[in-house]
């Protein structure tokens, strides 16, 4: 029998995902050991787990290198890959927002040249260009996005917010919410067809647990 490969985003999302997979009877104990390996096998169920960077999960699944993936909705929106998004797992919840300094809050819509710092250029462009009909200049960053408005690199940021604590500590406030984010279970378009029974079995079982 062919292995079903499941791609997990390294970090907390992977840990939460493992709990779910364990609860539906897959053997993930190999992954719980402290190790640098990136691929783990459950021989009894013919399932492989691979650990990849969050932003790469949709790529692995789109190409069929993994049949199933678990990844945040933020990554899915940013990567815009061609795949099936089957379940909302309900964990890893947060919000995608536009945030900036308090004093800009009422003036931002009328600001002429809007500079937006973000790790999510596509989400930022889609939101401002398509939804709001505003032109923006996107400044792509890889982390500590909250810093950008403080040092004058940008006017606002587009980023994910969980508790809002980091924003508050850096003197930023939420202007608008773009969308809600949570972990999603995604499936490759071909695998869904070629391995329908096994994949839908996993999907249905996971669904019971959320």
């Amino acid at each position, binding site marked *: 029998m*062919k292995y079903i490969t499941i791609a997990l985003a390294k970090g907390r999302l992977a840990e939460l995902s493992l709990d779910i997979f364990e609860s539906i009877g897959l053997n993930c104990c190999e992954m719980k050991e402290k190790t640098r390996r990136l691929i783990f096998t459950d021989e009894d169920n013919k399932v492989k787990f691979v650990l990849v960077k969050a932003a790469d999960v949709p790529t692995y699944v789109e190409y*069929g290198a993994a049949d199933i993936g678990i990844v945040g909705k933020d990554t899915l929106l940013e990567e815009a890959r061609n*795949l099936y998004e089957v379940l909302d797992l309900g964990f890893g919840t947060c919000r995608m927002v536009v945030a900036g300094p308090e004093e800009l809050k009422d003036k931002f819509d009328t600001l002429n040249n809007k500079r937006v710092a973000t790790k999510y250029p596509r989400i930022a462009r889609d939101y401002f260009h398509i939804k709001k009909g505003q032109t923006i200049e996107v400044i792509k960053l890889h982390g500590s996005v909250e810093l950008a408005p403080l040092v004058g690199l940008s006017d606002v940021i587009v980023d994910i917010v969980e508790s809002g604590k980091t924003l508050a500590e850096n003197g930023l406030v939420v202007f608008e919410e773009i969308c809600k984010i949570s972990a999603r279970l995604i499936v490759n378009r071909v695998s869904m*067809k070629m391995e*329908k029974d096994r994949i839908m079995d996993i999907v249905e079982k996971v669904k019971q647990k959320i």
Partner: protein
Amino acid sequence: MSRWKLHTPEGVQDILQEECMVKREIEERIEGVFQSWGYYEVQTPTFEFYDVFAGESGIIKQETMFKFFDHQGRILVLRPDITTPIARMVATKLNDMLPPIRIYYIGNAFRYDEPYQGAKLREFTQAGIEMIGTNTPESDAEAIVITIQALLASGLEDFQIDIGQVEFFKGLMEQTGLDEEQIEKIRVLIDSKNSLAIEELIDSYDIDDKLKATILNLPSLFGGIEIIDRAEKEVVNERARKALENIREVYNILLDYGVEKYISIDLGMVQSLNYYTGIIFKGFTHGLGFPICSGGRYDGLINEFGKNMPAIGVAIGINRLMSALDWKGVGFNLSTVDTLINYKAKGRKKAFQIAHELRNQGLAVEIYPGECSEEDILTYARSKKLGGIITIYDEENIELYNLDTDKKVKTTVSSLLARAKSKTESGE
């Protein structure tokens, strides 16, 4: 040396000898199937006016076309597909032919995907058929069966053809009374089987509860023919019901062809609604995350070029098919060079004569260009995995060296040619 001199641009590739032989072999096998079903090949230009591809039902986004200009400032594009140029050609040049018009093509198409995504080629080979002028379930089934036969001929064994019908979705949407933009939102979600978001979205619209349940059910309406039974029980309007009837008819014809084991149904397959007007289908196989072929009925396309003619067609992605066959380890018996001829000064003329004679007998023969030491010849022959070396010393004396058995035999020209002749005749 300038910076890019040694490189090829992203998305194009060289195809080296063996891979090229495999590619040609696959193409020939597929062409053989097309021809055996009565299809004739056509060729259209590699580049065309942008306007050809910019129509209402255009399936290819403007951003993905390679564009350039001619001297009059008109926009040209490298063809992003071959079906659209064929539609132009048929509408303008073949419109008085008696239907069905059966056409096949094989050629390269070009698309620019942004951002560039690794394995997706920007130049790729498509082989396909178009059956124009008829709109019957029998024509739909023929396109599907030819696709199956072509894939089988290429050496692929386990694959699946998914059949959908865009009219089913269009019928359901007609019933909801939603506008185009709202329908497009639902379509995108159904196409990605995102049940949760579909539920959220249609809850925000004022739609009959039973119809809501049917729409919500769409992403899971894939599997065997029993899917049609399931869908028929739903409350659907005339248009959607006809679509289901159409799939069932096509399926029954496929049963007569005896190919049902390759067929499955997916009513949630809902892409390119402006382009497709009926049956759509895609082919899948293990080891490849993308479809290997894609086809469907496009009754509106040729009308864009001024003639109202129904049509169905399919395009098989040769590069993807090659990846799938490679992944499955399907082997090909490729032609090889049988013999290397090398000669000493006095034997040159004879060497050319012998080579000519052997080639006429159907063998592939290489002549080593110029005199060379025995050792070098041997190294070269081994590196190319040749079967044997013939060394011609003069008008009559030659030596045969069989590299498989490592045996050398001295012999004469006349006996060599006689032997080769009897070998070819006995079909060895």
